[in-house]
């Protein structure tokens, strides 16, 4: 295969009037588009020489049909020159730095020497600026006295004349300006950072206007058969109309006043044609009042040509639907509805080796009713690139014709590799390659363990799926983008895929303390894993039934030579660790693949932490790790089903004693707050350094109330043990925290706005329910009740205030962090590691001599360390380090 052609470079320059005329295929003089028969006027804006958009017609220039003709430019001869709005600042600068009579730069040769020496000429670009030229001076070359040039937005230039001490403005017409720009010699232009070979400054004053091809301003035919023209065409019509009128008036010798008016009108139309958002210029509007979308608007902004069509492109071979969970799938799989699998295709080239198989695909055609049906094909592409749609009666004939050189577009089947994506795609794990599993239903199915990298949940999220169409793309997908290759996050070098929610609760319930299972229970637990034999039972009951411990069951999915020691997330960091005898069973010790002690929870298998997961990846590789994730998630789902797991309103029930204690605690806090307020009001409060007494009081109150809330939580926590689902979830790290439980069972606590108690509202009070200047706890948003008890009306308001702040916060944050990310990507996207280990831009500039100062890949390194020394020593010595 020959290497594909590459575009080497793109040069930018200005079009000269000559170039515009040579590239033009037609001079446009008629403002009308179509005649009564719907046929384009010759020399009108829709002239057939400019390209064709209606099917059936042929282009007069290239004789091609609508699909193939790229379109051709025409031109309009302007009656008088007009200024290009985009270049007004350049024109202003040039008028100010050059002589009004000889056109030379207003600097003597010595001065030029001086300025260009100080300027950094290596960078090129703007060498001279307006500031280098002194105001009010005579030309050093011809001695002409210079006048001040004023510029008025959008396109008016004028000179200030000094007559008898009085200032008077004299307007410069575009023709005058053009004449002056023409006089600037090429050598002077180079000093100004302008290359006169491709961009003479007078070309910024237009004498002839290119008319873009019809193909880039197609008209749409509405339902009622009426034509609706593109905004650009509308604008061009305006220009031609005024231009013609201008010419007629000019030829008829109209008075100067009328000529000037028409000139300005022409200038306005050309200006808005180029940019319809110029400051100081009313935007041209459509009949409906909508501002027209002209040339600049087409390029600009998020949906403009650059960001909308060139940097981001729409693709074929993609699907989108709602996602739902399926714990029985592997993390590397994705469940695809049959209706999508039937619609999407993979091209397969017919060779002598697969000819028969391909024939079968073709014979089956596009019909596929049930999951069990083998996949068929939707299209066949002949060697002459003709695409044949399969279906109906042509299956057999086409199957007959099939021979090497054909391509068959086969439907999706189990095992095909696809890219799966959820927006916003904030990091590379937002697109990963999965293997397909065709399923019933209408949603994409995925294992909940892959939710963290996508940041997906199942409350109605939708995801996209793309089918790679070439062998190279599939190879890259399988080798680089596959889920198991992305278990580790390059952000911090730890696993990002792992157990979540019920996986963690389940594995916690399974492995906590010691339990014994009968053979049938063990088999039930391990049914889905690939376990082929059971180990020796851990104990045999008196009646002879063999029993296996819960830790043995978990060990069965561990690699056999795994050694590690760590502390589970239920560890509370006691002053003295009792190791294996930990009363919380938080000291996890694995020797030769056997869980000796400890509870497996979030720290062990959870996404983001996953110590066991992390160790398996490093010692046994990604594939073993993805198998472990599958095993662990399936095991934990089974385990949670043995006891069952639920959470309801009565789980927050406290006994009367606890309620009494909580009330007492809150009353005490309230008294304390009142006492402090009294001290403050008596003026006895000692302010903290650098704070006013008010601020000090506020801080103290916040502190007291915060403590009180925490105490109610402790009281509730004492009552609710691991038997409570919320506690279990909080301790194991599955979901929620003790704070959540505190708020449900104990007391919701202080509501805040900007980190302070709620102060806003009515005059000197938050709500009309309180007295003015009341500084008490409840008057400023302290909520005594728990979610279970329910809130009083005032508390409800305060809660809504606090809650609203959170919502606003999220809304602002997404937009701000999105922009930060866009800027970061744009600044760093061109960096790569060169073969010599340096970091360079694609232009070749060196940014770092050795990536990250030690050349370690943050993804492969262990949480930032180049080598996981602790892990290695642990697995060799089999003891804690």
């Amino acid at each position: 295969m020959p290497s594909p052609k590459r575009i080497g470079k793109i040069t930018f320059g200005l079009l000269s009037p000559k170039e515009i005329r040579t590239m033009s295929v037609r001079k446009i003089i008629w403002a009308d588009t179509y005649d009564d028969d719907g046929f384009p006027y010759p020399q009108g804006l829709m002239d057939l020489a400019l390209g064709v958009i209606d099917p059936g017609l042929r282009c007069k220039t290239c004789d091609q049909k609508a699909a193939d003709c790229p379109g051709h430019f025409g031109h309009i001869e302007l009656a008088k020159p007009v200024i290009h709005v985009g270049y007004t600042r350049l024109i202003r600068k040039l008028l100010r730095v050059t002589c009004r009579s000889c056109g030379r730069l207003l600097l003597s040769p010595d001065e030029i020497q001086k300025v260009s020496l100080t300027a950094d000429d290596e960078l090129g670009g703007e060498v001279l600026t307006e500031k280098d030229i002194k105001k009010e001076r005579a030309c050093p070359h011809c001695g002409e006295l210079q006048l001040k040039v004023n510029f008025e937005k959008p396109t008016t230039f004028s000179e200030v004349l000094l007559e008898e001490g009085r200032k008077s403005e004299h307007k410069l017409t575009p023709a005058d300006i053009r004449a002056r720009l023409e006089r600037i010699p090429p050598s002077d232009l180079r000093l100004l950072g302008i290359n006169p070979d491709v961009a003479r400054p007078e070309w910024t004053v237009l004498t002839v206007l290119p008319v873009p091809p019809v193909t880039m301003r197609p008209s749409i035919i509405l339902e009622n058969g009426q034509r609706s023209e593109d905004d650009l065409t509308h604008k061009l019509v305006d220009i031609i109309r005024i231009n013609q009128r201008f010419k007629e008036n000019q030829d008829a010798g109209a008075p100067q006043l009328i000529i000037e008016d028409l000139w300005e009108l022409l200038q306005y139309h050309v200006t808005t044609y180029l940019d319809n958002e110029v400051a100081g210029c009313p935007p041209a509007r459509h009949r409906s009042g909508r501002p027209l979308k002209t040339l600049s608007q087409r390029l600009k902004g998020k949906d403009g040509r650059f960001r909308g069509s060139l940097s981001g492109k729409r693709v074929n071979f993609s699907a989108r639907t709602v996602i739902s969970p399926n714990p029985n799938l592997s993390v590397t799989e994705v469940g695809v509805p049959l209706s999508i699998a039937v619609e999407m295709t993979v091209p397969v080239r017919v060779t002598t080796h697969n000819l028969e198989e391909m024939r079968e695909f073709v014979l089956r055609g596009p019909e596929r009713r049930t999951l069990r049906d083998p996949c068929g094909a939707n299209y066949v592409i002949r060697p002459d690139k003709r695409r044949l749609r399969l279906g109906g009666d042509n299956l057999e004939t086409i199957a007959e014709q099939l021979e090497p050189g054909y391509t068959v577009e086969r439907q999706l089947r189990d095992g095909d590799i696809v890219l799966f994506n959820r927006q916003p795609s904030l990091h590379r794990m937002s697109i990963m390659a999965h293997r397909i599993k065709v399923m019933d239903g209408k949603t994409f199915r995925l294992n909940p363990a892959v939710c963290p990298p996508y940041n997906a949940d199942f409350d109605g999220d939708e995801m996209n799926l793309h089918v790679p169409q070439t062998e190279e793309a599939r190879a890259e997908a399988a080798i680089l983008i596959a889920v198991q290759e992305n278990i580790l996050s390059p952000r911090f070098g730890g696993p990002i895929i792992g157990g979540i929610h019920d996986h963690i609760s389940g594995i916690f319930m399974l492995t906590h303390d010691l339990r014994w299972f009968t053979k049938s229970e063990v088999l039930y637990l391990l049914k889905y894993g690939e376990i082929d034999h059971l180990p020796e039972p851990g104990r045999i009951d008196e009646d002879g039934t063999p029993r296996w411990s819960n830790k043995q069951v978990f060990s069965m999915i561990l690699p056999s030579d795994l050694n590690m020691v760590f502390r589970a997330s239920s560890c509370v960091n006691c002053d003295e660790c009792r190791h294996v005898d930990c009363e919380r069973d938080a000291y996890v010790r694995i020797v030769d693949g056997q869980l000796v002690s400890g509870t497996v929870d979030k720290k062990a298998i959870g996404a983001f932490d996953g110590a066991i997961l992390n160790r398996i990846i490093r010692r046994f590789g990604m594939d073993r790790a993805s198998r472990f994730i599958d095993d662990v998630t399936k095991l934990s789902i089974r385990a949670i089903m043995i006891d069952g797991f639920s959470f309801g309103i009565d789980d927050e029930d406290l006994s009367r004693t606890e309620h009494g204690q909580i009330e007492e605690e809150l009353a005490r806090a309230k008294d304390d707050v009142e006492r402090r307020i009294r001290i403050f009001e008596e003026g006895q409060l000692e302010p903290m350094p650098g704070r006013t007494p008010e601020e000090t009081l506020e801080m103290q109150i916040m502190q007291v109330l915060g403590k009180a809330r925490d105490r109610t939580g402790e009281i509730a926590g004492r009552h609710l043990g691991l038997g409570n689902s919320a506690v279990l979830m909080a301790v194991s790290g599955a979901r929620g925290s003790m704070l959540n439980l505190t708020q449900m069972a104990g007391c919701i606590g202080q509501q805040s706005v900007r980190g302070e108690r709620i102060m806003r509202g009515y005059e000197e009070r938050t709500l009309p329910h309180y007295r003015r200047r009341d500084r008490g706890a409840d008057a400023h948003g302290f909520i005594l009740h728990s979610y279970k008890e329910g809130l009083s009306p005032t508390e409800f308001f305060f809660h809504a205030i606090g809650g609203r702040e959170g919502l606003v916060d999220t809304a602002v944050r997404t937009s701000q962090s999105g922009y930060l990310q866009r800027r970061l990507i744009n600044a760093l996207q061109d960096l790569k590691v060169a073969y010599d280990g340096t970091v360079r831009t694609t232009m070749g500039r060196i940014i770092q001599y050795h990536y990250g100062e030690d050349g370690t890949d943050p993804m492969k390194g262990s949480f930032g360390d180049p080598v996981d020394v602790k892990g290695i020593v642990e697995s060799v010595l089999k003891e804690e380090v």
Partner: protein
Amino acid sequence: MLTDAMRDRIESSDFPPLTRQQLLDSLGDKEFSEEQFEEILEAVQNEFEETRIEPLEAVGVIAAQSIGEPGTQMTMRTFHYAGVAEINVTLGLPRLIEIMDARKEPSTPTMTIYLSSEFNEDRDRARMVSWQIEAAPLHEFGDITTDMENMQVLVAVNQAVLAKRKISMEMIVETAQKKIRDRRHYRDFEVEADPENHVIIFTPKDQEKYQNLFQLAEHVRNVIVQGIDDIERVVVRKESGEYILYTEGSNLKDVFEVPGVDTVRTRTNNISEIAQVLGIEAARNAIMAEALATLGEQGIKVDVRHIMLVADMMCMDGEVKQIGRHGIAGEKESVLSRAAFEVTVNHLLDAAVANEIDELNGVTENVIVGQPIQLGTGDVKLVAKSRT
């Protein structure tokens, strides 16, 4: 046990210093055999080789994603009490944006001033240094009265404060008058000191208008006579056995000149100030430290290497440049890349006049023209020969 020979082998190996240290630490007091030592070294060697970064890896994009992605999880709360309850510091996403914007001045400049050994053990001695740093307006030194009858502003200097703050009357008169003239640009007045009654008398030159008197009084009240103007507040705190000063406001250069300040450890969160005073390398390290601290405070784990790359990119040209339009992204060589980022039209118009040439080396440019980008698998130039 770790023998000396083993120790030497570890220390003379090619591993990074961190890995060598970790090896020494974790093997230090362990019992193990010769074979186990060999096994460990080999495993470390293997893992070390495995964790090398691969050529053509798009490290820039990975770094950008690694910093940008957790942005959504950060809080917006501008004010937070960091360590010292008395001093406010901007944290979270706003602070991260501030660092990447390379602002001239952060919204809450603060300094952490360490003291040299003779001042950091005793609160009073630390306080003495802090007097030299904290900006103290004249009204803190005594009562200021406006004498309307005689058209004078009188400052009754409190001797106790003078003694406490170790400053003489003459010094106050001198600095007050100099500062009012130079910093506050108010010149039409005269000063007289009356050391016996401990009074300083300020008289406006223009005796006609009361307005002048009140203006002068205002200047006299607020003129900073001791300390550094930019540092509004200093808090002395004891941390891990020594006294440290935390400040609101930052002025690295002037603080360095105060005797008793440990210039090695003292730091500020104003990055551009660090670049000016200590140079670009220090600024690069400051960007890293600040970004890492901001992310760490939010409990977000990000590898240093990503932040390092961003900091290196920002400091590449010898000055701290912003991530964005007015910095790195705006100074790219490629026209198309700049046009695709922000202010599309202007970049294109300017490119035409300057006859710019886009060499199509970068990522965006190649995406725009629809050809493979020069990163990762797109940059491998390998063509298989066909067998015929």
